[in-house]
């Protein structure tokens, strides 16, 4: 499912990470690019095939020097930016960072197919039972889940909602913005894939259960980028979005009862007053190599935390 957020941070220019439907595969292109035109022309094609296979083979030999990170698209910008900076100091290391969602992060670390998983929510009880002994959960940033609406909705007067009102929208009890003090227009209710960390956090605070159904939903989106695109293209949308994806066309509304409603500002999040917030975590196997642990240390360092702030989140230290 190559969603278009897939700006896999191909930090090593010789390598491209592509996500196929079921799995991520890393292709190492050693040497010159293969010229597609010569692929099927006799000897040269055999030669290029050999080079290609050699590339794959030697790529797997280099696995020790490579760190693969997969998971939440919310955590991705922090880790990707940190990886970029980290590689300036460690040019011999290869880092690939790609998205997929928190569920993918957990599943991949469980399968052992990646070195670090990214998760934008606390682990569930079952996940802790399964992974608690072998995996360490490390917070790398703090983030608010904003209730995001289209610009037109915001400007028509819907600038704050209570948790009960938001829940009513997602349960399908409120279907028109007029009922919330806005314009007379149907609500485009955007839900997220069930495995997404942002949805877990949203659903447990707003709907009372991380896996609650949302019968009022109109459509389902995946990554933050996909959802951001839908909200900005529409004039009637509401969705749940990480704080870092807000912009002029995608506005956050204040959440809470009456005057106590708060926007997900840095201050409100830092003081823990905003209602829907979470730690952005990485999952690291306890028996990780020194190289992985050093990168994790970098994420937690002052430099790493300033990177988290730079991409729109809040530091955890």
């Amino acid at each position, binding site marked *: *499912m190559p969603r278009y957020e897939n700006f896999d941070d191909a930090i090593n220019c010789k390598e491209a990470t592509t996500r196929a*439907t079921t799995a991520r595969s890393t292709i190492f292109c050693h040497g010159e690019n293969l010229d597609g035109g010569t692929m099927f022309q006799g000897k040269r094609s055999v030669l290029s095939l050999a080079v290609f296979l050699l590339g794959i083979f030697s790529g797997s030999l280099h696995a020790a020097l490579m760190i693969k990170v997969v998971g939440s698209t919310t955590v991705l910008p922090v880790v990707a930016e940190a990886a970029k900076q980290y590689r300036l100091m460690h040019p011999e290391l290869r880092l690939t960072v790609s998205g997929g969602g928190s*569920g993918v992060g957990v*599943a991949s670390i469980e399968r052992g197919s990646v070195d670090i998983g990214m998760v934008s929510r606390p682990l569930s009880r079952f996940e802790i039972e399964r992974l608690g002994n072998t995996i360490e959960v490390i917070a790398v940033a703090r983030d608010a889940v904003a209730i995001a609406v289209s610009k037109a909705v915001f400007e028509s007067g819907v600038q704050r909602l209570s948790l009960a009102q938001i829940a009513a929208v997602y349960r399908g009890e409120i279907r028109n913005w007029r009922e919330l003090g806005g314009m007379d227009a149907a609500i485009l209710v955007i839900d997220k*894939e069930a495995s997404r960390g942002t949805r877990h956090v949203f659903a447990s605070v707003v709907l009372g259960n991380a896996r609650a*159904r949302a019968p009022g939903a*109109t459509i389902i989106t995946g990554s933050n980028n996909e959802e951001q695109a839908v909200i900005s293209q529409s004039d009637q949308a509401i969705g749940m979005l990480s704080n870092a994806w807000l912009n002029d066309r995608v506005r956050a509304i204040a959440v809470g009862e009456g005057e106590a409603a708060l926007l997900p500002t840095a201050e409100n999040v830092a003081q823990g007053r905003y209602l829907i917030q979470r730690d952005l975590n990485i999952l690291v196997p306890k028996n990780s190599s020194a190289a992985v642990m050093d990168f994790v240390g970098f994420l937690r360092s002052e430099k790493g935390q300033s990177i988290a702030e730079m991409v729109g989140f809040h530091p955890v230290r």
Partner: protein
Amino acid sequence: MTIVLVLGFLLYSSWPLIAQQGVAFIVGSEWYPFESLFGMLPALVGTLWAVALALMIALPCGVAAAILSAELLPARLRNPLRFSMELMAGVPSVVYGLLGIWVLLPLLESQLNLLTGRTLLAAGLLLALMILPTIMVLAEDALRGVRQSQREAAKNLGLGWNATLCRVLLPQAWPGIRVATLLASGRAMGETVAVMLVVGSIDRIPEPFYNFLQPAQTLTSRIGREMAEASVGSQHWAALLFCGLLLAVIAIVVSLAAHRKASVVV
């Protein structure tokens, strides 16, 4: 042989689910993996709708283009037309998907006054675009395969162009057009990325069921969205592989039908 292996693998992998729930879930209408509800009906209906819409649009257009190219245009114009069709067939589906998002969806929203353009219609239109080259190229081959003597005989009988087309050419080319249709429907059914980007991905049967202006889900888009997150060996995993099995079975039935019909006539 490969088919048997693929089917065997799919059946084997989805067996944990079948063993636990039987096959009644195929007609279930609720898909909530976390609650162990694996109803296939919404995605099945969505898939069939998307394919049907695509065929309804692409078949008339494709055959018309084939007639134009095979019967009416001089060779000088025919070749560029055919070449452009072949180019169209080579465009990666994700490109069509992105085109769909940035061009088709806003257009549908504004023209049809919809809450969201992410609908079965959007999926059908995109799929139509993708299968058009298949239908056109194969139908053109079928038309050109009709013997010149048949055309001459029709002319000698005093038949006009319309009658020649409807009574001679199309009936003779029909087996080829039918195969083209079945192949194209297989392609449309299996298409994942482009559909996933525009269909809305919500597991709900449209209300009423013929309302193709609502968001829906297809089997492929469900697999595409959920496969990476399902842990291997879980019920969810098995259910997704069962979606694959359903698709494979439908595709095999379709191609068997294509094969048998074609060989009867030829």
